[in-house]
C-alpha cells in the first residue's frame, strides 16, 4: 500500500515537473517571438496576409454566432425582465452582457477553435514536412518569418472580431426584442446609450479580448512549433490548442473580471 502511494506521488511529481518545464519553454518561446517580431512589424504585409487567414476567414462564424447569441439573449432577457415589469431595460441587458462578457469570451472561444487550431496545424505540418528546417538552412529565422506574423495577426484580429460579435449580438437582441416581441424601440436604444459606459464597459471588454488574443495566439503558435513532426503529433497539438486555449480564456476571464468589475 505504501509503495502504491509512493508510485502515485512519483507519477504526480513527474506530471507536475513536466508541466512546469513546458510552461517555462512556452514562456521562453513567447519571449523569442516578441524579440523576433521586427520582421512581422517592419514587413507588415506578412502580418496582413495572416490577418486575412485568421481574422477575415473567421468572420462568418463570428458574425452568425454573434447574431444568434444576441437573439437568445433577447428572448431570455425579455422573459426574465417582464416578470419585474422592466422589459424596456432589455437593450441594457443585451448590450452589457455582450460587451462585458459574451463578446470577448465567446468570440475568443470561437477564434481558438477556428483560427487557433488552423495556425497550430499549419505550423505543425510545416515542421513535419521539413519546411521550417529548410527555412533555417536558408538562413531565415522561422520564428521571425512564420511564427511572429501569425502571433500578431491573432492579437490584432481578436479585439476586432469580439467587437463585431458584440455588434451582431446587439442587432440580434434588437431584432428579437423590438421587432419580434414588441419592446419599445426608443427605450431599447436610449436605455442602452445611457447605461453602457465607454471606459467601464466597452474599454474593459476590448482589454479582455486583447488579452485573450495574446493567450490564444501564443498557445496556437507554440503548440504548432512544439508538435511532434508526425500525423498523430500534429493532431494532438491541434486538440491541445483548442482545449488549453478554452480553459485559459475562462480562467483569465475570471481574473480580469475580478479586477475590472468590483461593483463600485
Amino acid at each position, binding site marked *: 500500500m505504501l509503495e502504491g502511494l509512493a508510485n502515485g506521488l512519483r507519477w504526480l511529481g513527474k506530471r507536475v515537473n513536466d508541466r512546469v518545464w513546458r510552461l517555462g519553454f512556452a514562456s521562453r518561446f513567447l519571449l523569442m517571438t516578441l524579440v523576433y517580431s521586427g520582421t512581422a512589424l517592419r514587413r507588415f504585409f506578412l502580418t496582413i496576409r495572416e490577418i486575412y487567414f485568421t481574422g477575415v476567414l473567421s468572420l462568418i462564424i463570428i458574425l452568425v454566432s454573434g447574431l444568434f447569441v444576441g437573439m437568445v439573449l433577447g428572448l431570455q432577457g425579455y422573459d426574465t425582465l417582464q416578470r419585474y415589469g422592466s422589459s424596456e431595460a432589455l437593450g441594457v441587458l443585451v448590450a452589457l452582457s455582450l460587451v462585458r462578457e459574451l463578446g470577448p469570451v465567446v468570440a475568443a472561444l470561437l477564434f481558438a477553435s477556428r483560427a487557433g487550431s488552423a495556425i497550430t496545424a499549419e505550423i505543425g505540418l510545416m515542421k513535419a514536412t521539413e519546411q521550417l*528546417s529548410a527555412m533555417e*538552412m536558408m538562413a*531565415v529565422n522561422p520564428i521571425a518569418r512564420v511564427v511572429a506574423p501569425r502571433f500578431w495577426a491573432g492579437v490584432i484580429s481578436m479585439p476586432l472580431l469580439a467587437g463585431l460579435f458584440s455588434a451582431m449580438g446587439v442587432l440580434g437582441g434588437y431584432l428579437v426584442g423590438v421587432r419580434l416581441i414588441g419592446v419599445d424601440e426608443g427605450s431599447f436604444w436610449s436605455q442602452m446609450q445611457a447605461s453602457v459606459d465607454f471606459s467601464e464597459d466597452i474599454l474593459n471588454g476590448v482589454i479582455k479580448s486583447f488579452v485573450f488574443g495574446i493567450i490564444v495566439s501564443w498557445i496556437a503558435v507554440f503548440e504548432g512549433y512544439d508538435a511532434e513532426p508526425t500525423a498523430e503529433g500534429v493532431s494532438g497539438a491541434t486538440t491541445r490548442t483548442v482545449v488549453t486555449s478554452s480553459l485559459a480564456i475562462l480562467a483569465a476571464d475570471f481574473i480580469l473580471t475580478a479586477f475590472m468589475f468590483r461593483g463600485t
Partner: protein
Amino acid sequence: MTIPRGKVVAIMGISGGGKTTTLRLIGGQVRASSGTVLVDGQDVAGLQGKALYDLRRRMGMLFQFGALFTDMSVYDNVAFQMREHTDLPADLIHDLVMMKLHAVGLRGVADLMPSELSGGMARRVALARAVALDPMLIMYDEPFAGLDPISLSIIGELIRALNDALGASSIIVTHDVQESLKIVDYIYIVSGGRIVAEGTADDIRQSTAEYVHQFVWGEADGPVAFHYPASPYRDEIHAVAGHA
C-alpha cells in the same frame, strides 16, 4: 571526412547510420558532442546567430521530399531567398528565378503550386531553390528517394551539372548505390556513426570488404543482419502457445 572544393562526394550507408545527422552537423542544426566540423575554415559548432546564418547563406540544401513551401507558388519558392537576403529589384529577381527554373527544365511551371507538381518535379524545383543564391556548398538529403527511373537519372545529371557550373562542392547523402556511383567523385560509406569504407566509384565497386560488398550489391547475407535483435524465436513461439 573531407569534402574537397569542386567535387561531388557521396555519403552512403544503411538507414539510421548517421548520414542525415552528418548533414545537420555541417549545417549547424545539430551540435557535435565531440569532434569538429569545419566549413570553409570555420568551426560550425562555434558559430551562433548572425555568424551561423551568414555561413548558411553560402550553403544550399535539398531536403528528402523537397520541403517546398506549400503556401507559395513555384516562382515564390525559388525567389524566397533572393527576397529575404537581397535588395534586388523585382525584374532582376524574375530573370534570376527563370534562369534557375530553366536550368532544371521547369520554367513552364513557375505559376503552379507545389501540390500540383509530381514528386520528381517537386525535387527539381527544390533543387532550383537550393542553388538560388549560387552557394559554395550544396547538400542533398536522399535526392533519389521515391523517384521513377527517368526522374532519378535527370536529378543525378542535374546534381553533377549544377555543381560543375557553379564551381560548388556537393555532398549527397543517399543509399542509392548505382545512381550515385555514376556521378560522384568520391564516396564515404558510414555505419553506426563511423566511416567503414571510402574511395572512388571504382574502389567501392571492387572492394572486397564484407560490409561494402553487401551494401553495394544489396545482398541479404553479410555483417548487416536482416533481423532486429530479439529474444530467441523458439521462446517467442512457445510463449504464445502457452498464452493460448
